[in-house]
C-alpha cells in the first residue's frame, strides 16, 4: 500500500492532476468508502487527489434552485435549515447514513459518484430530478442524475472529471418529499431497500428506489399512474414499483422480501407526502 497524496489549491489544478495520472489516480472526497477499499486492497491507486479546500462544500439556495456542493457532508445536509419543509427527504436520508462520525466526513458527492445501488441520498436526488455538474480537462458539462448513473460502481464521469455540484429546482409550496429505509437494524446499516418520493399537488410524481436493481432507479410507470389517478392509485403504484424492480438475493435479504418492501414503502411514502401536503394546506 502506498500512494502519493496531492492537495491541489484550485479545481483546475485538481483536474490537471486527474488528467496527468489518469486511472492511477482517485479523487478523495470524504474517503469513508475509498480509504476502506484501499485498506482492504480492493483498490490500489498510486495517487490520491484531495478535493478538500476547493470551496465545494457549500449549500446555497436561489429563489428557484438549490445547489449542493459535492463536498458538503451529510451532517451539513441534516443541519441545513432550508430542508425542513418540502425537501425533508434530504435530511431524512442523510440522517441515516452511517453514524455521526461518518456523517461528519462522508460527502454528498461521494454518495453519488460511488454509485452504490444502496446509496441513501441518491433516490432523494433522483426524485427531485437533480442535475450533476462536472468539470474536466475538456470543460464543464451538466447531466441529469438519472443519465449520470450507469450501474453499480459506474457513472458517466470521465477519470479526469470532478463532480462539483448537484442542483435541482426548488419544489412548489404545495409539494412534499419523503424518504423511507428498511434495514436489518435501526442504525449503522446498509439499506435493504430505500425509497424516495416527491409529490406535487396536481402535478408531478416521482418515485425512486435504492437497493432494488443494479443502480438506483425511478419507476416512470408508477409515477404516471399517480399523476393521473392521485391518492387512489398509491397501492397500485407500489405494486408496479415492485414488479418493475429487479432486486437480488444477498446476505441482507431475499429478492422476494425486497419486492414486498418496495411495494409497501412506496405506498407509505406516497401517503406520507399526500398527508404533508394536506397538512400544509390551510
Amino acid at each position: 500500500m502506498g500512494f502519493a497524496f496531492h492537495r491541489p489549491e484550485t479545481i483546475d489544478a485538481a483536474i490537471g492532476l486527474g488528467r496527468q495520472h489518469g486511472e492511477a489516480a482517485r479523487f478523495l472526497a470524504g474517503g469513508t468508502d475509498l480509504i476502506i477499499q484501499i485498506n482492504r486492497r480492493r483498490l490500489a491507486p498510486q495517487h490520491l487527489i484531495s478535493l478538500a479546500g476547493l470551496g465545494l462544500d457549500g449549500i446555497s439556495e436561489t429563489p428557484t434552485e438549490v445547489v449542493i456542493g459535492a463536498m458538503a457532508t451529510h451532517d451539513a445536509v441534516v443541519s441545513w435549515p432550508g430542508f425542513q419543509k418540502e425537501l425533508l427527504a434530504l435530511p431524512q436520508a442523510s440522517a441515516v447514513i452511517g453514524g455521526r462520525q461518518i456523517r461528519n466526513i462522508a460527502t454528498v458527492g461521494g454518495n453519488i459518484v460511488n454509485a452504490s445501488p444502496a446509496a441513501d441520498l441518491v433516490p432523494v436526488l433522483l426524485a427531485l430530478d437533480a442535475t450533476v455538474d462536472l468539470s474536466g480537462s475538456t470543460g464543464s458539462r451538466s447531466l441529469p442524475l438519472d443519465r449520470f448513473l450507469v450501474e453499480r460502481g459506474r457513472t458517466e464521469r470521465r477519470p479526469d472529471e470532478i463532480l462539483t455540484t448537484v442542483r435541482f429546482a426548488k419544489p412548489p409550496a404545495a409539494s412534499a418529499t419523503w424518504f423511507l429505509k428498511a434495514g436489518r437494524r435501526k442504525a449503522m446499516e446498509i439499506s435493504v431497500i430505500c425509497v424516495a418520493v416527491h409529490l406535487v399537488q396536481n402535478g408531478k410524481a416521482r418515485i425512486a428506489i435504492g437497493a432494488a436493481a443494479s443502480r438506483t432507479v425511478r419507476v416512470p410507470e408508477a409515477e404516471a399512474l399517480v399523476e393521473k389517478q392521485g391518492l387512489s392509485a398509491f397501492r397500485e403504484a407500489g405494486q408496479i414499483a415492485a414488479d418493475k424492480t429487479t432486486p437480488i438475493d444477498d446476505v441482507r435479504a431475499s429478492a422476494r422480501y425486497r419486492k414486498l418492501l418496495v411495494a409497501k414503502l412506496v405506498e407509505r411514502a406516497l401517503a406520507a407526502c399526500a398527508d404533508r401536503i394536506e397538512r400544509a394546506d390551510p
Partner: protein
Amino acid sequence: MTRHALDLTINGESHQLMIEPHWSLLHVLRGELGMTGTKENCLEAECGVCTVLLDGKAVNSCILLAEQCRGRSIVTIEGLGDPEHLHPLQAAFIKHGAVQCGYCIPGMIMTAKSFLDERRGHVPSEAEVREALSGTLCRCTGYQKIVDAVIAAARQRNSWPEEARRS
C-alpha cells in the same frame, strides 16, 4: 514510500511529524505519538472506538488519513481531562458506573462530547442520545448506564467549567 512533513494540532499542541501518505490519523496518534487513549479495533468505521474530534466534530480516526487533518484541530480523550481534572462527561461515566471493560469508553465520551456541544445546552432525550451514540459500539452492552451518564452530564452543562464546553 518516502515520508514527508506534516504539522498536526492535537489537543492544542502543534506536533511536527514525518509521515507516510497512507497513515491514518489513528496510526499517527497511537503509533507515532503514543497517545493510546484512542482505541483501535475494526479499522472500518463500524465500531467507533477510535472516535476523536476534528474541528469539534466526532470522526472515525481509523479511516481518516492524517493528511486530511492538515490545518485542522484534533482533540483526543487525552485532551479532555486528566485524573485530577476530569471532564464532566468523564465524571458522569464514573458516577453512573457506565464503564465495564472500558475499551469503548474513550470513543463513547468523544462521541457524546461532540453531540452535546452541538446541542449547546439543550438536554437530549434518551432516544436522541441512543441515536447519537449509534456509531459507537459497546460489546459489554452496557448502554443503559452510558446513556444515563450522558443525559446526567447534559443536565449539568450550565455548570461545566468553561474549558469543558469548548469544542
